[in-house]
């Protein structure tokens, strides 16, 4: 389709388009999408809603978007803070974009869809997350070669840690502080098991119980962004991952010192 078939959008409508495209990009960036996906999605949405071109710059703590239609253009910046991984939101934005590209939705419908996506609560209740994350860490202890006592201890330590993390996060403490406190609690319980428990492999509980905090998504996204040429956000995400790892180690180290065990 050539550009001449598209009527240039008036400035008022450009404002609407940039708002919707930026909002979608913000949701992706906040909830753990890689930079390439954010750029492509914002571009597809904007052009599908009637612009000739979109320019997007993804930065570690914000999005810059320009919409261009005919002679007219508008630019908007939005600050973005990471809010934790939410694959349902990433998935929903992906589906929304596809429907817009296929011409199923107009701007008003996109807006109400975005409102619905933002206000949808998470699928899983908190207790289920605690249970499953505890089980995941306990499963890791099995992969590391632990016995059933280690499995049980890791499950309890990691589950308690996850509950503490949820509670602290809901009170809006600094993210790294939450990580240190969670590692202290989970690592402390695991260290008590190492000190007073029995079994050859019980040291494994220490590392396994804090795996729930591992910054897997920032680190994997960092590597992916760097490979795809998004150096700045890749470096920033790598730094985030390093700081989280350092905080975990700090909490774990404190726990080990308090209980009086050594070695990992």
């Amino acid at each position, binding site marked *: 389709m050539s550009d001449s078939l598209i009527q240039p959008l008036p400035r008022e409508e450009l404002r609407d388009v940039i708002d919707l495209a930026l909002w979608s990009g913000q949701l992706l960036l906040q909830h753990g999408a890689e930079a390439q996906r954010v750029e492509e999605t914002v571009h597809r949405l904007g052009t599908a809603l009637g612009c000739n071109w979109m320019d997007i710059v993804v930065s570690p703590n914000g999005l810059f978007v320009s919409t261009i239609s005919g002679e007219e253009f508008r630019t908007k910046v939005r600050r973005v803070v990471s809010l934790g991984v*939410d694959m349902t939101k990433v998935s929903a934005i992906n589906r929304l974009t596809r429907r817009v590209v296929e011409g199923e939705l107009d701007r008003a419908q996109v807006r109400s869809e975005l409102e619905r996506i933002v206000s949808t609560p998470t699928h899983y209740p908190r207790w289920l997350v605690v249970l499953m994350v505890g089980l995941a860490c306990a499963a890791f202890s099995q992969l590391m070669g632990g016995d059933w006592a280690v499995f049980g201890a890791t499950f309890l330590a990691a589950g308690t840690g996850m509950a503490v993390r949820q509670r602290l996060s809901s009170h809006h403490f600094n993210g790294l502080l939450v990580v240190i406190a969670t590692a202290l609690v989970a690592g402390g319980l695991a260290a008590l098991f190492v000190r007073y428990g029995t079994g050859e492999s019980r040291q494994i509980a220490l590392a396994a119980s804090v795996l729930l905090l591992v910054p897997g998504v920032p680190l*994997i996204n960092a*590597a992916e962004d760097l490979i795809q040429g998004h150096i700045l956000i890749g470096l920033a995400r790598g730094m985030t991952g390093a700081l989280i790892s350092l905080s975990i180690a700090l909490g774990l180290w404190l726990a080990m010192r308090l209980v009086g065990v050594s070695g990992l």
Partner: protein
Amino acid sequence: MSVDPAILWLVGKDALWAGMAALGFAILFNVPVRALAACFVNGALGHALRSLLMHYGLGIEAATLAGAALIGFLGIASARLWKAPAPVFTIPGAITLVPGTFAFRTMLGLLQFAAATSSDAGGEILWNISFNATKTALILAAIAVGIATPTLLFDRRKPVV
């Protein structure tokens, strides 16, 4: 070539626990309910492949690359089947490969180095820090390249932006 049943049993157990770990992280990441089973399978198969290759003597970095590539391909297939973007399926699976223990040891080493009392002890700690940091970085790179393999090889679109 006959496969030792003992190895099959070990790999099967490995797959089961890795799948469990992937499922737990999928729930933490609020993966849509319809995608949970695929996350379990991806994590299980990716990690089991890594363990199997390491059992046959491959280094952890190369084995991780292979495991992550399998997760990448399964992710693309799952994305088509369940109509959701690939990261929904690849990220929980890839979490099972993340070198958490190497990363913790690096950072614990930094804290120990600050308290080192002699240059001999300090030297050994420094060696440990460098070793664990290198392992962490290489394994992470292997994961990222691995899960991007299908895109890098077969989906080379002209950039839209």
